[in-house]
C-alpha cells in the first residue's frame, strides 16, 4: 500500500503529468504523419530521457505508443494513407466517412474506441501481471530457457511472411548479442580487439539504427507528396459529432475488439496490426449494419481501433511478468527499463514496486490525456497528417544521429546506429522481420545465462532440459505453437493460391 501512495505522489506532479501529455502528443503527431510511426517515436525518445527518472521516462514512451497507434488513424481517415500499419484496417471505412463529410465523426469514433481498448487492456494488465510474476518466481534455469525459446519460436514464426526468415532473424539477433564478454569466463568474445565491443553492442544505438534509420532510408527512397483529395464539409451538426445512436453502434465492436486486442497483446509477436484486423473482422461478424462495411461503417472503425489499441497495455503483461517483450514496442521499453537501471521481470514487483504502480497509474492517466488531446487538438493533427515529409525525414534522421550519440556521448555509437540502419534496410528489402531480430537480441542474456546455468547444474547433460514437469509443459507448448502456426500458414497459402487461380 505504501508503494501505491508513493507512486500516486510521484505521478501526480506537474513534471510527470507534462511528460505523459508530451508523450501522447508526440505519439499522435508522429503516428499521424505517413512514413513515421509510434515505434520510431518511442525509439527516438529513449536517449532523450536519460537525464530523467525512470517513471516519467517510461510513461512518456507509453504515452507516445498509445498516442502513436491512435495517430495512425488520423491519416488513414483523412488522406487514405494509414500513418501506421495498425491503422490499415481503418482506412476503408474511415475515408469513406470522410468523403461523406463525416471526417470529424470518424476521428472521434476512432478516438473513443482507441481509449476504450487501451483502458480495458490496462485493467487486465493491472490485474494479471503480478499473478504471472508470482508463477514466474517458481521458474528455474530450465523453465526460463524454455520460456525464452517459446517466445523466440512464436515471434520467429508469426512475424513476417516466412517461417525460415523469422527463425533466422531470431538466431541472428542472438548471434549479434554474442559480441562482448563471455558471461562465464569474462573474456572478450567476437570483439576483434576493438575495446568498444567489450561491453557488447548497446541496445539504444542498435534500436535507433534498426528501427529509425533503416525506415527513414526506405521512406526517403519512395517519398512522394500526398495530394489530399478535397473532402466535403459536414452537412449537419450530427456529421461532426458522435451521437447516442453512434455510441450504441460502437458498444459491441468495442467490447469485442478490446478483448481480442488484449489476447493478441499477451501473445508474443502478434502486434497491433493483427489486433486491428481481427477486431474489424469481429465487428463485421456481429454487426447491426454489415451492409455498411467498406462504405463508412462506425462499427468497423470502432472494432479496428479498439482492437489495435488494446494490444498496447496487454503487451506489458509478459514484459512485467516474465521479462519477455511481446513486440517491437515492448522491446524498446525493455531498453528504457535497462538504461534506467531496472530489469523487467517478476522481481521488479519486489525491487521497484513504486515504479510498477507509477506505471499503472500513469497508463490510466495517459488514456485520459489521449482522450483530451485527441478531442481538442484534432485540427492540429489534421495538419500533421498533411505535413511535407520531404522536409521532415532529413530532420528526423539528424535527430536519430543525435539520439545515438547522446546515449554515451560516443561517435562510435553513431557508427553502430548507421551500420544497423544499413542492416535494417537490407532486412526490409529481403522481407526479414526486424521484430524477431530485435527480440532475439534482447532475450539473448536471459537465454544464455539460463542455458549455461542449467548445463552447469547437470554437469553438461542436456537431459536437464526435460527433467522438470513445468519445463516439459513449456516445451510442449513451444512445439504445439510452432506446428499450429506452420499449419495456419500452410492453409492461408493454399487459400491465396486458390483465390489467385480463380481470378
Amino acid at each position, binding site marked *: 500500500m505504501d508503494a501505491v501512495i508513493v507512486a500516486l505522489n510521484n505521478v501526480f506532479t506537474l513534471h510527470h503529468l507534462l511528460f505523459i501529455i508530451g508523450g501522447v502528443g508526440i505519439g499522435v503527431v508522429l503516428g499521424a504523419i505517413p512514413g513515421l510511426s509510434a515505434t520510431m517515436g518511442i525509439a527516438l525518445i529513449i536517449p532523450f530521457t536519460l537525464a530523467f527518472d525512470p517513471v516519467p521516462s517510461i510513461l512518456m514512451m507509453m504515452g507516445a505508443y498509445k498516442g502513436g497507434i491512435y495517430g495512425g488513424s488520423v491519416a488513414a481517415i483523412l488522406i487514405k494513407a494509414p500513418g501506421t500499419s495498425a491503422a490499415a484496417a481503418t482506412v476503408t471505412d474511415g475515408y469513406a466517412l470522410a468523403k461523406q463529410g463525416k471526417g470529424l465523426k470518424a476521428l472521434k469514433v476512432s478516438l473513443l474506441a482507441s481509449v476504450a481498448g487501451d483502458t480495458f487492456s490496462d485493467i487486465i494488465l493491472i490485474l494479471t501481471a503480478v499473478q504471472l510474476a508470482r508463477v514466474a518466481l517458481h521458474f528455474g534455469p530450465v523453465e526460463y530457457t524454455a520460456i525464452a525459446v517459446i517466445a523466440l519460436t512464436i515471434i520467429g514464426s508469426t512475424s513476417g511472411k516466412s517461417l*525460415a526468415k523469422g527463425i533466422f532473424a531470431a*538466431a541472428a539477433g542472438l548471434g549479434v548479442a554474442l559480441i562482448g564478454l563471455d558471461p562465464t569466463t569474462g573474456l572478450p568474445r567476437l570483439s576483434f580487439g576493438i575495446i568498444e565491443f567489450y561491453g557488447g553492442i548497446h541496445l539504444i544505438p542498435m534500436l535507433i539504427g534498426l528501427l529509425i534509420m533503416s525506415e527513414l532510408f526506405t521512406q526517403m527512397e519512395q517519398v512522394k507528396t500526398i495530394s489530399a483529395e478535397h473532402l466535403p464539409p459536414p452537412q449537419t451538426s450530427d456529421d461532426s459529432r458522435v451521437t447516442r445512436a453512434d455510441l450504441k453502434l460502437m458498444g459491441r465492436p468495442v467490447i469485442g475488439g478490446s478483448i481480442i486486442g488484449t489476447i493478441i497483446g499477451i501473445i508474443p509477436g502478434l502486434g497491433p496490426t493483427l489486433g486491428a484486423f481481427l477486431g474489424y473482422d469481429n465487428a463485421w461478424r456481429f454487426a447491426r449494419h454489415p451492409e455498411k462495411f467498406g462504405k463508412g461503417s462506425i462499427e468497423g472503425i470502432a472494432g479496428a481501433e479498439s482492437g489495435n489499441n488494446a494490444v498496447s497495455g496487454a503487451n506489458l503483461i509478459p514484459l512485467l511478468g516474465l521479462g519477455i517483450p511481446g513486440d517491437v514496442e515492448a522491446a524498446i521499453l525493455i531498453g528504457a527499463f535497462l538504461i534506467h537501471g531496472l530489469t523487467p521481470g517478476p522481481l521488479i514487483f519486489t525491487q521497484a514496486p513504486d515504479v510498477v504502480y507509477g506505471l499503472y497509474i500513469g497508463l490510466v492517466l495517459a488514456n485520459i490525456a489521449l482522450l483530451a488531446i485527441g478531442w481538442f487538438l484534432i485540427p492540429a493533427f489534421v495538419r500533421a497528417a498533411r505535413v511535407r515529409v520531404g522536409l521532415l525525414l532529413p530532420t528526423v534522421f539528424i535527430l536519430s544521429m543525435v539520439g545515438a*550519440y547522446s546515449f554515451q556521448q560516443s561517435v562510435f555509437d553513431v557508427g553502430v546506429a548507421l551500420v544497423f540502419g544499413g542492416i535494417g534496410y537490407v532486412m526490409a528489402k529481403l522481407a526479414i522481420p526486424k521484430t524477431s531480430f530485435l527480440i532475439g537480441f534482447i532475450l539473448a542474456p536471459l537465454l544464455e545465462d539460463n542455458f*549455461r546455468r542449467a548445463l552447469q547444474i547437470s554437469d553438461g547433460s542436456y537431459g536437464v532440459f526435460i527433467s522438470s514437469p513445468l519445463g516439459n509443459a513449456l516445451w510442449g507448448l513451444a512445439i504445439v505453437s510452432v506446428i499450429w502456426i506452420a499449419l495456419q500458414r500452410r492453409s492461408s497459402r493454399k487459400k491465396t493460391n486458390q483465390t489467385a487461380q480463380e481470378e
Partner: protein
Amino acid sequence: MPAYSGRKLAEIIGACTLLAFALFVYLYLFPNQIPKGLPGDLDSAQYPTAIMIVWILSVIAWLATALSSNVSAESIEGGTPGRKSLLIAVTVLMGFLLFHLVGFIIAAIPTIIILSFICGERGVTPFILGIIVPPAVYVFLLKVMEVRLPSVIPL
C-alpha cells in the same frame, strides 16, 4: 540455368550470402574469437554453436523455399534500390564523416539540405531548415540535457 526474376534472385543471393557468412563465422571466427571455458567448466562454445546451427539450418530452409517457390509476385519494400538509394547512402556517410571530423553543426547543415533535395523538396525551405535545425538541436541538448555535441564551432 533458369532465368530468375529480380525478387527471386535477390532472395537466392541473400540466402547464399548469409549461409556463406554463417559458415565463415562458425568455421573461422569461432575457433579464434570464442574463449575456451575455465578448467572444469563447460565449453564456452556450446551456446554460440547452438545458435549458429539454428542460423545455418534456417538459412538453408530459406534458400530451399526461394528456389522452389514462386516469390516473383512479391514486391520489394520501397522498390528496388536505385540511383536515389545510392545518393542517400553517400549523403549519410558524408554526414557521419563530417560529424566525426568537424562536429555536429557543420555535418548536419549539408546533410539536411541534401537529403531534403533528394526527397524532392525545392526552393529555400530546405536551406532555412538546414540552417535553423542544427543549432536549435545543439542548444536544446546543451541546456536541457547537458549533453555537449561535438562541434568545432564554439557556441
